[in-house]
């Protein structure tokens, strides 16, 4: 019950702040414009591709690239959206109100995380409506689209967890946003050197988020990739809970 109360409170705070609406409007506008460009390019090349027996279709050329662009935007959107969830409360002095309501640190963290994740899933759903409105007029590869959507859900969930964790460690929301952005970029590009050296395996590649997202965007669902995302989410939320618990101890 207290988990739901925290989620509702955070959800309400997200909805009444201009930041969430501005981010949604700007990013959806950008994605809509890119969808139009991708669609135009797809339609222009339709005749040439008709000659290819197994050529790329609407899903490969429009839907998945659109989700790829959402993934890139998420690098900036998620840190901005999650930066105040705990750091803002700490700064305003409202965090003790939650402690004094007898809500454990784990539920505060989880409640806030679910609110941010809810907003991100709504954002993803609105983006998905763009290719889906053309489902009746084109041939959608539902398997590939589902796999890419699962990948995006996992990525957004992981970024939200990192954002909440950074917010729990920071005293100012801007520091939390910067921390989350750096952590996300580091996690994305941790294997850049290895890739440049021609290494495609090993621990360093396993650590990188791109290693686990790319197969999902290509339609390959692997339990190892899903487990990687789940582990990252659990680790980030556990760190946030630990930090918040220490807040209560330290005062």
């Amino acid at each position, binding site marked *: *019950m207290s988990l739901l*109360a925290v989620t509702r409170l955070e959800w309400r*705070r997200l909805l*009444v702040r201009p930041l969430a609406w501005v981010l949604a409007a700007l990013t959806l506008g950008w994605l809509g414009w890119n969808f139009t460009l991708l669609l135009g390019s797809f339609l222009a090349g339709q005749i040439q591709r008709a000659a290819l027996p197994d050529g790329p279709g609407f899903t490969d050329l429009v839907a998945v690239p659109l989700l790829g662009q959402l993934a890139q935007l998420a690098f900036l959107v998620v840190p901005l959206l999650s930066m105040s969830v705990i750091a803002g409360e700490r700064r*305003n*002095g*409202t965090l003790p109100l939650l402690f*004094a309501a*007898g809500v454990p640190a784990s539920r505060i963290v989880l409640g806030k995380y679910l609110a941010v994740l809810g907003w991100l899933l709504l954002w993803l759903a609105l983006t998905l409506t763009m290719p889906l409105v053309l489902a009746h007029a084109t041939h959608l590869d539902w398997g590939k689209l589902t796999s890419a959507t699962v990948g995006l859900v996992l990525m957004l969930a992981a970024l939200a967890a990192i954002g909440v964790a950074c917010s729990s460690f920071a005293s100012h929301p801007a520091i939390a946003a910067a921390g989350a952005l750096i952590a996300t970029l580091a996690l994305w590009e941790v294997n850049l050197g290895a890739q440049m050296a021609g290494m495609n395996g090993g621990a360093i590649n396993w650590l990188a988020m791109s290693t686990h997202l790319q197969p999902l965007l290509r339609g390959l669902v692997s339990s190892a990739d899903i487990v990687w995302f789940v582990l990252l989410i659990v680790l980030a939320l556990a760190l946030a809970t630990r930090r918040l618990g220490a807040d209560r101890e330290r*005062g």
Partner: protein
Amino acid sequence: MTSITPASPKTVLQLDLLSRRRAGRQAVQDLSLALRSGEVMGLLGVNGAGKSTTLSMIAGALRPDSGGIRLNGEDFLEHPELARTLIGWLPERAPVWAELTVNEHLDAHGRLRGLNGSALRAARSAIIERLELQPLARRLAGVLSQGQRQRLGLACALLHRPALLVLDEPANALDPVQVAGLRALIREQAAAGTAVILSTHLLAEVTAVCDRVAILHEGTLRHDGPVHADDHATLEKTFFEIAMNGSHQPARAA
């Protein structure tokens, strides 16, 4: 300081050798006291005496380093969830979620305290009416004056009808009319059986509403005794003796 006897059925709050370090110094040390239902206790002390730290620990916002807190006979440190229904807390400066309206604040606090649906709506209406918050109900908390925030914080603390009301400087930023209203409200809560502990700098506040007064100095309890409405001069003398010398000499019987 000696340990106090086990809680009687009417004891709402019992502190047992409570200690807490804060900002590199001993903020509260070996504090023991008990509060019964319907009793109003004033917590006095100069700045930095440990009043707010004590109240934060009682409210569950801060864990003590050592010692025990019992609420209605149950170990509060073992069961922090007791705070949800038993305690109403008005922190110093009444922090608010600036982007929420007064109504939304009350709803959020109610849900955090386990109220929902019609029970929440009824509690919200009752407290809005009692604290005359109707004109502010749809206003954002961020634009309220400090006195209005204080009233909102008080409404949030009272919304779920707690057994223990913890008020940290409740008269802060209130005008004289509102202070009179606050005093009436505290007496009303006490008459209904709520135990109230309040910290204040105002001795007149203590003589006006409190049954007992505890004086803290450098984190330790230096005085705990009854207070009467006509005791202002005695209380003032005790307070200043403790503030200046750290202790006071009780008056000898003739």
